């Protein structure tokens, strides 16, 4: 069996079994229970929710991320073992959605971690989520979903973006010691 045939086989099995970690701080989390349970039943595609990042293959991010939660998402993403894929769920991950001009919510998730598939909509229906799973399976089986390789290759760029937004977390008002000094 040649090298390419072997990687094709591995990709086939990876596509048939994808375990998902759902990072649900956004309101879109409400669409996930119907996807997991009897109505749409994602387990028939071999996708089950997992409890920790170590066990997961997919990181599904629902909705907006504030700077604080983005930090946790980056930690979570770094803890997952490769190969790993990210699904951006809802318009908040694409362009900020209704939070597009907010001072403490990020606009584009793709600047901080590599997103393989976006699910557009506010909010996307469970059918759209199922469709994205099928699409991701096709991409994985063809060997096209390579977001994690993009992340390692362009780590400096991602890291600079992350540091830029984390460094912005200075207090908006005066610093505490200045307040006590003036009092």
């Amino acid at each position, binding site marked *: 069996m040649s090298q390419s045939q072997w990687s094709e086989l591995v990709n086939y099995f990876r596509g048939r*079994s994808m375990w998902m970690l759902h990072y649900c701080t956004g309101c879109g989390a409400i669409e996930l229970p119907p996807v997991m*349970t009897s109505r749409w039943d994602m*387990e*028939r595609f071999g996708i089950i929710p997992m409890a920790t990042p*170590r*066990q997961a293959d997919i990181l599904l991010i629902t909705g907006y991320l504030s700077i604080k939660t983005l930090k946790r998402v980056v930690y979570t993403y770094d803890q*997952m073992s490769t190969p790993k894929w990210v699904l951006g769920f809802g318009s908040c991950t694409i362009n900020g959605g209704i939070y597009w001009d907010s001072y403490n919510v990020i606009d584009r998730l793709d600047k901080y971690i590599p997103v393989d598939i976006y699910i557009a909509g506010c909010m996307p229906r469970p059918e759209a989520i199922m469709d994205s799973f099928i699409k991701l399976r096709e991409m994985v089986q063809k060997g096209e979903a390579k977001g994690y390789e993009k992340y390692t290759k362009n780590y400096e760029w991602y890291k600079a973006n992350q540091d830029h937004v984390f460094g912005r977390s200075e207090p908006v008002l005066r610093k505490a010691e200045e307040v006590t000094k003036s009092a």
Partner: protein
Amino acid sequence: MTILLKLIQGIGVGALSIAVGLLFIGIGRKITARIQRRYGPPPIQNFFDIFKLLSKRSISHGFAFDLGLIAGFSALLAAVVFLPMGQINIFPHNSSLIMIIYLMTMAYLGMAMGVSSSGNPNATIGIARALTMMMGYEVPFAAVIFSVYIFSRTGSLANIVAAQSGGFLNWNLVRLPFGFVAAEIALQGMLGEKPFDMTIAPSEIASGPMVEMGGKYLGFGMLQHSIGLFIETGIMVDLFLGGASNIWIFIAKQFVLYFAALMINAIMPRFRIEEGVSFMWKFPLLLGVVQALIVVL
């Protein structure tokens, strides 16, 4: 030459137990899905999962982590060769029953060493629950084994099976009914099915012992679970269901036991750990002791 042959047979039996265990878990997922009115994954889904897990990159948490998992896995592989399954009986040991029980405890201890060295508090809580639960179900199971021992006057599983030959009425299921019920409840705890699945409570302690396992480590954890399932149901078949004349009947009888456990699993909520242990020490232990008294007197 015979040693080499035994070695090959042992590897074969290990592979068989892994394959059967994984298939059982896959069919179990399908059955649970149908009970919940879902379509469910294909029965061979667990083979996909294992292949994917073993092909992932994985993160170790130190030497003790690796050693503990390998120790647990190999202890179960060592236990499975002592199990007479149909016409296959590689090591007809004189007290194979005690041997298997001992090695299965070793598997838990190895896993405890491994996962607690990962340093995650959820893993420590999970493994503490697993060992507490083991203390819970081992006591009634020991009482049952005691009565089977005295009843059959032998500690060899092959001889216990031989003593039950000659039709349904000679099975220990009929001869020792209280012991069977006690062992069946203990089996539910051993398999970690509901209501005794507090070890891996995903919503409370983030899947307990598996919390820091990823990739190949989780794959080995799953393989360990599948061999454990094979041994636990296999012991019950040998002790109570009269063994089997060939391997296919053996696997069918194992599946009947697993199916019963699944049905209970599908309709039950979860015990708290102290409720689980106190339940184990009340009803199954009482039944086991009653059975032992009946046998002795």
